[in-house]
């Protein structure tokens, strides 16, 4: 039997090839470059790869093609999402590269040492760090780019694993609070493995229904397959579980706060921004390309899930006392808002979702960058009570954080407002008024925890032994600047990105 090699459009695939290739080079760097130089080599390599990948995405603009034997679709949404993932990934890598805050970076040098033991304490005080973090991040980012371009469910599954496995590892690498970090990694890995299993099982059932894993073929099958619909619905439900898990949507959200809290903060930023983009990108593609004609069956379910996600995320955010957990619940609620755009099921829905994902990514990375800066002797001071009076100690960083929090709360002149407006308008256009009403109510509830942080920072008196705000190194400062500029610019002059998202809203089938 002869198997023809599939034709590959290398130009169209170049972004993910660059990222994955650079990740492989990064592994070689670990093997051959002396330890002292590794950090810088890795940082330069990663940033160069990300810039090259972004250039590749820009060069592919307006491409609409399906390549690799129908496995990969390069179209507007794929390119927009890839670009977002790469830019947000670059900003997260800047945070990972920061060495002036901790001795070394946020990563431990040897993850396998028992937490709390003497060697562990020795490691914590040494400036060496785990430079494998960079290739791991590149693998994850490459996987995400593939994830949003996957045109068949098997490739999507492979991409899911490529992006997930490095993240599981990265979660365990925190230099401080090792136990919390490792526990988070185990939790993330176990639940993620379950979710992947559901996804794969769903793929199998859908294959049984449609006789193919290709999204376009599934679309055709949905319109005229004689097979039993039970296969379709059960398969779709299982697929959904796998995707919603990655997106951190209620009721598959329970890992989010623990993992966000336990992971090293730069990794949390990476997950909160890029993974969210990737997950929703895949959700968009699956539902818009493959299952649009069964919308009467799944749309009410997604609407209910979106409502639940917004309300649960908002309500639980109110009760949080740890800033990272607060941001985690806020990201859950935001997942609900994004889902509001997804279920609109029109072009406006796609473009508003794309815009939301990009805008939200910048804000959330910026917020985590500020979290990295607020430190005391034990590392980051994440308990909210420690943030009291921060506005008096360092007005600049409190001000920056305030911009992010106001954006999360959806105040005008920030990107958060434009994003919310866009998805709500799309949802009303799509006929789901109830969803928007729930969304508005959730926004009201959600304003409270953000406001509480602002109150703490400005209106409370500083604690005697409160944390100091470290002066950020160049990398963090760059990430913060990008975050603030993007948050404000996308709030005041969002036209360019909105137009870009609008032009990119057409899937190829």
């Amino acid at each position, binding site marked *: 039997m002869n198997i023809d090699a599939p034709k590959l459009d290398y130009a169209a695939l170049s972004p993910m090839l660059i990222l994955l290739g650079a990740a492989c080079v990064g592994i070689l760097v670990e093997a051959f470059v002396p330890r002292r130089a590794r950090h810088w080599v890795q940082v330069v390599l990663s940033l160069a790869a990300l810039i090259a990948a972004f250039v590749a995405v820009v060069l592919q603009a307006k491409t609409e093609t399906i390549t690799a034997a129908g496995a990969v679709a390069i179209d507007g949404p794929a390119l927009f999402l890839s670009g977002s993932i790469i830019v947000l990934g670059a900003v997260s890598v800047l945070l990972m590269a920061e060495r002036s805050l901790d001795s070394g970076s946020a990563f431990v040098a040897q993850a396998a040492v028992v937490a709390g033991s003497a060697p562990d304490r020795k490691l914590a005080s040494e400036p060496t760090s785990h430079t494998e973090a960079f290739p791991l991040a590149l693998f994850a980012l490459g996987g995400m780019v593939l994830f949003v371009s996957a045109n068949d469910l098997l490739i999507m599954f492979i991409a899911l694993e490529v992006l997930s496995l490095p993240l599981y590892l990265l979660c365990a690498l925190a230099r401080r609070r090792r136990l919390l970090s490792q526990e988070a990694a185990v939790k993330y890995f176990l639940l993620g493995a379950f979710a992947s299993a559901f996804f794969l099982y769903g793929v199998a059932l859908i294959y049984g229904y449609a006789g193919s894993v290709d999204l376009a073929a599934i679309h055709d099958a949905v319109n005229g397959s004689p097979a039993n619909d039970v296969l379709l619905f059960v398969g779709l439900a299982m697929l959904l579980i796998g995707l919603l898990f990655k997106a951190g949507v209620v009721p598959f959200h329970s890992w989010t706060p623990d993992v966000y809290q336990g992971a090293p903060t730069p990794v949390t930023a990476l997950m909160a921004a890029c993974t969210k983009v990737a997950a929703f990108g895949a959700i968009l593609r699956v539902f818009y390309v493959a299952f649009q004609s069964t919308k009467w069956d799944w749309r009410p379910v997604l609407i209910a899930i979106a409502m639940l996600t917004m309300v649960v995320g908002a309500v639980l955010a109110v009760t949080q006392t740890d800033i990272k957990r607060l941001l985690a619940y806020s990201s859950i609620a935001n997942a609900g808002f994004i889902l509001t755009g997804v279920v609109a099921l029109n072009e406006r829905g796609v473009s508003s979702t794309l815009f939301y994902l990009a805008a939200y990514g910048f804000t959330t990375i910026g917020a985590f960058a500020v979290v990295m800066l607020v430190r005391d002797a034990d590392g980051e001071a994440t308990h909210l009570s420690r943030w009291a009076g921060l506005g008096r100690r360092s007005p600049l960083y409190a001000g920056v954080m305030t911009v992010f929090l106001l954006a999360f709360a959806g105040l005008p002149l920030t990107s958060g407002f434009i994003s919310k407006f866009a998805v709500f308008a799309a949802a009303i256009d799509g006929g789901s008024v109830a969803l928007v009403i729930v969304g508005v109510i959730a926004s009201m509830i959600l304003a409270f925890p953000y406001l509480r942080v602002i*109150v703490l920072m400005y209106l409370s008196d500083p604690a005697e032994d409160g944390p100091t705000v470290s002066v950020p190194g160049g990398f963090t400062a760059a990430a913060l600047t990008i975050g603030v500029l993007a948050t404000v610019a996308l709030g005041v002059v969002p036209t360019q990105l909105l137009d870009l998202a609008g032009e990119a809203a057409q899937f190829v089938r």
Partner: protein
Amino acid sequence: MNGPWLPVLTVLPLVGAVVLAFLPRGADRLAKLVAIGWSLVVLVLTIIICAGFDPDGDRFQFVSSYTWIPSFGTRLDFGVDGIALVMLALIAVLTPIVMLASWHESGAGRRSVRTYYSLMLALQACMIGVFVATDVFFFYVWFEAMLVPMYFLIGSYGGAQRQYAAVKFFLYSLVGGLFMLASVIGLYVVSARELGEGTFAFDKLAGMDMSTAAGRWIWLGFFVAFAVKAPLFPFHTWLPDAGGQAPIGAAVLLVGVMDKVGTFGFLRYNLPLFPEASRFFAPLVIVLGIIGILYAALLAIGQHDMKRLVAYTSVAHFGFIAIGVFAFTTQGGSGAVLYMVNHGIATGALFLVVGFLIARRGSTLISDYGGVGRLVPWIYGAFFITGMASLALPMTNSFVSEFLVLIGVFSRNPTAGVVATLGIVVAALYVLWMIQRTMHGPLNPSLGEKPSWRDLSRREAWVIAPLLVLIIGLGVYPKPLLDVINPAVKATLTDVGKQDPQPTEVAGGNR
């Protein structure tokens, strides 16, 4: 007179706020002078704009429009009608006065003076933006942005309960604002269906034919936001806290201008965009307004705290404004708009005088005063005049407006007019009683044997004198304002489709 006058006017204070933020730390005096100077420039520009306004010309003047977010159908539309113009004038006059009044207060408790004045200018920019925007989306942006500087002014520079008051203020306003957001989105979708393309431009929306059900729902969203901001009973509970805790300067702007955005919103958006819904809900608003007049006035009598008392009187006055707006008569509408200006001047002045007293005694409680009229005769005089303006004594500015409102309401709905008139009686009670308890009678023993109180300082005289002049001046001769207001109100009433009732018992009114 077209051209970018209004965008410049809006951006100018923002630039000032940024400039102030970059002044060297500790240069407090410089910051104050720069801020006051800046606000005087804004005042001059506003005067130029007022001089160029033609009362008999187009409804919106100084119109300019810029592309903003085409995919949302929103543009940066600027323009003023007579109603917005008088509000701009009010902002321009009050801001420098308020800044001068905050000379000592801003730095109290080792807080940054720069930031205080920077926030003041940012607030001024947002308030100007609200009144000059003629695109609903653009308006909403300013409407919400306005919260942020005021939140920090209350929260960072306010009294002992400032945190509570600031958060309450912010959450109430934000919740109201989100209702409006829902309506703004609804408006967009309806306009996309009716006009073929989604738009927020006021003139296009005002001519739109909207279905009854949709119109009423969207009207309610706007109404709740404006009623919270105004504040109308039963959405008023944040104001006594915010007004009571805010530093005096911010309190004047809060009650004097910012709250007017609510009643301005009724006039600019509720009435013209949703005529049917406005007619449908008018009785409800009138009832709420009258409850507000009586209930808030009664509560004001019971207050121990002077700032809270003044804040409650505002709730009562806003009741008058609301019933004036929803009476759908020229007199009622013009009276309401005039009241918006006069209330800003009179209540602002009252707040400032109360602030002078507080600065001397260090207490806001009425019971800590008593007989101090003899110690500070000039302040007493100012207190008396502003108090009389607050209860709308003839010859003060509030009288004209209150009279017009009552005539307007009476000709449409005599019962409502009669009941609202009761509010005047109660108003006399709380103002006179406050003056009596603080100024007259024997000297409060807790002040000591021979308390040495400075009378009005030169700075304070500069603060209060312009307002006293305006109180008397507009009380005697309100015509210039009414000339500007009347055409705008008439245009608004035409939008609602209501004619003035035939004057039978009550004749005239138009001077």
